Structure formats: structure tokens, C-alpha cells
């Protein structure tokens, strides 16, 4: 009896596995983003990440949605570690802090200029640790003490953090 029940359960599990929708993803099409650059021009928000994907929209959510939709593969925004707000996009910080697509632990900074090489930024921020995160910005929006957002000066290939360095 007990053995029969075990087989019945195994058969039910197999049936469920076959019936439930499988959500497989081709490994080669995965695009984990590490850096997200947000800029704004003429009321249009542009989001660009180090994997090469980019999207445009009326607000940040739409730009991120557009970027996910048009990416050449499956874009992972949950892996974004650094959010850079380019010139004109500083006002979008609250939108970034409240976005459910981005991790609360992602570090945030404002850039004086648009960095060209986004792939170089993770190494730069590993060497120059900053403090402000999206979670802290969200807490500030809810009434906590605001955290000073670091400012990244960009001039050609040269980058310099001019405030908000950790330690």
C-alpha cells in the first residue's frame, strides 16, 4: 500500500511537471547588467546599461521597460550594482529609488558628464567605494536623514569622485 502510494505521488509530480508551464531561458541570451546610466533630454528619459542595451521613455519605468523589451536577449536589471544619474537626470533619483526593477542595494551617484565606457565603471567603483544606495534614498523619501549622493566628474576617459567617498 505504502509503496503504491509512493509511486502514485511520483506519477502525480511527473504529471504536474509536464502540465505546468516551463520557463526555460537560453543561457547564451542572458544579459546581466551591472551598470545603469540614466539621462534625460527634452523630457525623454534614456536608460543605458553596460551590456549594450538601451531604452527610451517618458519616465524611468517606461525607459527601463523599453530597454528590457528591446534588449538583444534576456536583460537582468536585478543585477545592477551601480546606478549613474547623468546630466539632467538628477531629478529622477526618487523614481530610481522607488523602482521595483532595481535592487535596493544598488549604489547610486550623479555624474557631471556622460561616461562613455560603462564597462570600466565597476572596476572604478570597486577601487573607489561609495556609500549611497537606492534603499537609503528610499528611506530618505520616507522621512529619514538624507544621504549625500556622490558626484562623479567625467572628463574624457578620466573619472573622479569628488564627494561621497566611503571613509
Amino acid at each position, binding site marked *: 500500500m505504502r509503496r503504491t502510494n509512493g509511486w502514485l*505521488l511520483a506519477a502525480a509530480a511527473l504529471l504536474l511537471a509536464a502540465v*505546468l508551464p516551463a*520557463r526555460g531561458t537560453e543561457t547564451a541570451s542572458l544579459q546581466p547588467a551591472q551598470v545603469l546610466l540614466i539621462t534625460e533630454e527634452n523630457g525623454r528619459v534614456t536608460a543605458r546599461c553596460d551590456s549594450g542595451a538601451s531604452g527610451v521613455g517618458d519616465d524611468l519605468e517606461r525607459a527601463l521597460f523599453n530597454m528590457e523589451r528591446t534588449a538583444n536577449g534576456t536583460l537582468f536589471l536585478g*543585477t545592477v*550594482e551601480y546606478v549613474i544619474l547623468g546630466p539632467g537626470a538628477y531629478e529622477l533619483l526618487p523614481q530610481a529609488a522607488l523602482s*521595483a526593477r532595481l*535592487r*535596493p*542595494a*544598488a549604489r547610486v551617484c550623479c555624474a557631471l558628464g556622460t561616461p562613455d565606457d560603462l564597462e570600466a565603471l565597476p572596476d572604478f567603483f*570597486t577601487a573607489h*567605494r561609495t556609500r549611497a*544606495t537606492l*534603499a*537609503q534614498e*528610499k*528611506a530618505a523619501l*520616507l*522621512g*529619514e*536623514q538624507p544621504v549625500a549622493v556622490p558626484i562623479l566628474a567625467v572628463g574624457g576617459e578620466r573619472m573622479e569622485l569628488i564627494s561621497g567617498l566611503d571613509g
Partner: protein
Amino acid sequence: MDWTDSAVRRQALGWLFAAGTAPVFLICAGVSWHWALAGGVCAALFFALLEALGGGLPLAAAFPAAFGKAAGGALLALEGLWLLLAAAGSAAAAGRAFPEDPSRPFACAALLLLAAWAGWKGAPASARCGAVLSLLLAGSFAVLLAAAVPNGKPAWCRPWGVWQDGARCFACLLFPTAGLLLRTGGGKSRPGGMLALLALAPACAALVCSAGLSPSLAAAEPFAFYTLVKSLRLFSFLERFEPLLSAAMLAGLFCMVCLCWQSGAAALSRACGAGRSAWLEPALLLPLAGASVLAPRLPAAFWTLGASIFWGFLPLLTLLVVALKNVLKKEKKGVDKPESLW
């Protein structure tokens, strides 16, 4: 479950610990640490009092002893119905363990199916399973809490919140009453470590959560500990512990559903004067599935009030009446040793 056997008692305590991780990290972690501490200490004192009053008397047997066969049976049936509703509520909460997964409604169904199977196997099998899971959950939550400590800010450790948070913590930490209803025998147990854990663990989780997220954010998030885990950085690198937390929450909720389901079924069958049937718990699967759809729509005040009445007030009243009856009986017999009342 006969608690005279030390192995069975340890397994039952492990089961209670595993089940307790669900309310601690789902509810208590999102309130201020001082209200969580107040709720935890009150719950621990309540169980110390219940243990002293009961003196090893199984709670299910105390109902007819206190209120007579008919009234006691009716109250026990109400207690059983509440426990089944709590089981449905816990199963419905399984979706909260996967806040970003679109297929999260399946978690509730899977949990109910697993709990029905566990109920068919009986309480001793569930206790053994809970004991094994308790070790796994202790390790998992220790890792998560340890990883969250360096992210904390001392300024965010300040007390905050309202007294209703403390009442909510106290009510949800009364869940071990379900374990007392499953106890069929055994003398006084000394769950000192368990009571200390019940008093302190919710405050620890709340403190780590508040310090890591800020009081405002911890209060605003529906599952604050999940947001905290998403916000973790170790050695300045992002950590992705959410799958570990989701799996641990599901295991904890499974233990909670089994505990409430089996104690509810045991209370109902005892109230009806029937013996234990292996098919009772699986037979309750469909009604519980229906109740799990309704359960999330019930307000938090309903759960707080229900838990306070059925896990707190009613068991306490029952054991007090039994103790009073024992005193009166002894006085009637003319026993002149008042120091050994029970």
C-alpha cells in the same frame, strides 16, 4: 504525541521552532524591536504560566475537564476551527515568500498538498520532519542575520512604532498553543531555551531589519526582511540571498501549516468524540484550499483578535478553571496541604 519520551519532546520543540520562524520573519521583523521584544517576552511569560498551570495535563483533555463534555466539546471545536483557519492563512502567506515570482500562487497549493500528505502520515512524522527542518532553518536564518548585521546603522536602531505592533507580535507568537493541543501525555516539560528564544528572536530580527533598512522603510515594506535581504552588501559586493530566504520561509510556513492543520484536526475529532483517522487531514484539503483564498482578505485586526482569543485567552481560562476545580475538590476532601495544589 507523548512528551514523556525525550526524543519526541525534542522533535516537537524543533517543530515549534521551525514553525515559529514564519511569524518571526514575516510579521515581527517589520515592527520596532522594542515592540517585538515586548510581544516576545509577554508570549514567553504566557507559556511559562500555561505550563505551570497545566502541570503536564494535555490541553485538549483540559477543555471537557473544565467546562463539561458538551460545552468543553463545543469550545474545543471552535478552537479546532480557528486552527484550521490559521492553517489556511499560513498557507496563503506562502505567496509572500516569493514576492517577485509571478507563479507564487502555486506556492500555496503546493504547501497545502504537502501538508495534507504530512497530515496523512501523522503528527510524529511531521514532528520528525520539523526537527530536521529546524536545524536547516536555524543555519539559514543565522547566515542571513549575520550577513545583515554589518549593513546596519546605529542611528536606525531607535525605537519606533505603535503599541498595536506589540499586540500583533504577541498574538502571532502565541502559536505554540497549537503544539500544546497535540500533546497527549507527559509530565512537566522545561522548555526554558525555547521560551528564551520566543522572547528574544523576534526582537533580534526586528532590530537587524530596522537597523539595515531604516525604521521608515521597515514600516513601509510588506515583507521587510525580504527587502533587507535584497539590500545586503558584504565586503561592498551585492549579495543575492533571496532564494535562500524564500526557501527557508516556505519550509517554516510548511511547518506552521502542518502544526495548525494537525492540531485543528485533532481538536475537532476529539470534540466530536471520534478517534484519530489518517484520512481526516487529507479530507480537509478542499475546505482549507477554499479558506486560503479568503484568508488574505481578512484584516490584520481579525488575526490579532482571533489569535489572542483562541491561542491566548481560551487556553488560559480553561487551565485556570481546571486548576480552580482541583483546588475546590481538594478542599472538599479536606486535604490540608495547600502548598501542593496541583
